[in-house]
């Protein structure tokens, strides 16, 4: 019963319209060998410890060439565009950690 176009409904769509294009997920690589991986430390306690442990395992077991770890300003705030752009320049994958 929800198939009518919004313009034909007898009431108003309360959202802003929802016309933004959907963002497609990036293709997932099948192999990590030689890849550069970015990790974002969200500043919560022990988040860095988890990331460093993962970084070591990724290098040793999967042949990852390099791991870049960066720290956000605060866990409750998004990473800045500048930080995301910087990581996107160099890395093929990213991992965001939640510590605590």
């Amino acid at each position, binding site marked *: 019963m929800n198939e009518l176009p919004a313009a034909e409904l007898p009431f108003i769509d309360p959202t802003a319209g929802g016309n933004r294009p959907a963002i497609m997920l990036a293709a997932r690589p099948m192999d990590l060998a030689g890849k550069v991986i970015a990790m974002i430390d969200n500043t919560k306690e022990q988040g860095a410890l988890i990331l460093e442990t993962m970084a070591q395992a990724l290098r040793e077991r999967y042949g990852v060439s390099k791991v870049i770890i960066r720290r956000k300003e605060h866990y409750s705030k*998004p990473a800045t565009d500048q930080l995301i752009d910087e990581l996107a320049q160099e890395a093929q994958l990213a991992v965001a950690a939640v510590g605590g």
Partner: protein
Amino acid sequence: MIDEFEFFLDKPWSDGLPVVTPTEARLATMLAATRRYPDEPIGRIPPAMEPVTVRIAAIHALMAGCRPEYLPVVLGALPLMLREEFNLNGVQGTMHGVAPLMIVNGPYAAHIGINGGNGCFGPGFRANATIGRAIRLMLLNLGGGMAGIASATIFATPMRYTACVTENRGRSPWESLAVSKGYADDDDVLTCAMVESPRLHFDDVSQAPERLLTGIADGMTALGSWNMHARSDMVVAMGPQHATICERAGMSRADVHRWLVERAGRTVGDLKRGGNWRRERALQFPIAVDPDDDACFIPTLKDPIDLQLIVAGGWGPCTAICHGWSGGSRAVHGHYDAEA
């Protein structure tokens, strides 16, 4: 034939309760309550960042059940809640369960019937129920702050249905919160603070402030409260009976505020017994403490401006204490335009 109640619940475009169906005729009535241009942008609601305009706010206000005259409060609240220091984005995503409590001061709050007396945190009062609900519907529909989607909240809180009160000006012995912040008594002022549900502190024994405030301070210092372990906001709504005990003993509102800021807290040794104590957290406090000294006193309020002390509720021996969030949200205050 579409059943509009089921339609809005299915989308989902509600908080789980039926909404008033937004039709063009109802929207026109709602928009007649403001002189503002319907397409005037107000901001974007994080984290989905869908835009909110006067028109979209009015749609949500009518869905929530607001009377048109409540709209100026809804429109006044949005820019305050979108201030960076309020950190709505963080609260929308957090595991915690705080909600933006609106404390609406000024003559317009009384004019439209916001309740600050008996049962002010509970059901039965249309302005309280629907103004806060209008905000919540926008946080859900435009911000995407739904549990399990953009929100990692563990429990949430009943305050996420609505969280809107005023002070009990008729029975308060003191000036309002807004006046304490430097506003005039006849200014229409809104304060928003990110807090948990109220925890009731009963005391029908104390007849002197020292004993009364000692008990209230104890309610401000639970081991599992983030107020003890990070800089967090707090709202203390003193029942008028408790406030009057202090006033009759010669204490001003500022005196009680100072007493609670200075005396509510625990020692490091006490905090180590349970809850969220971590040495590295204490080192992040904006005040100097020695986490290695078990006798060191840790105040609940790390900055006096984080305590919003109001007088609300009906007559009786009770005060309500709302603890805060750990993630860095500062209470916001500002005028709202009743004529807008």
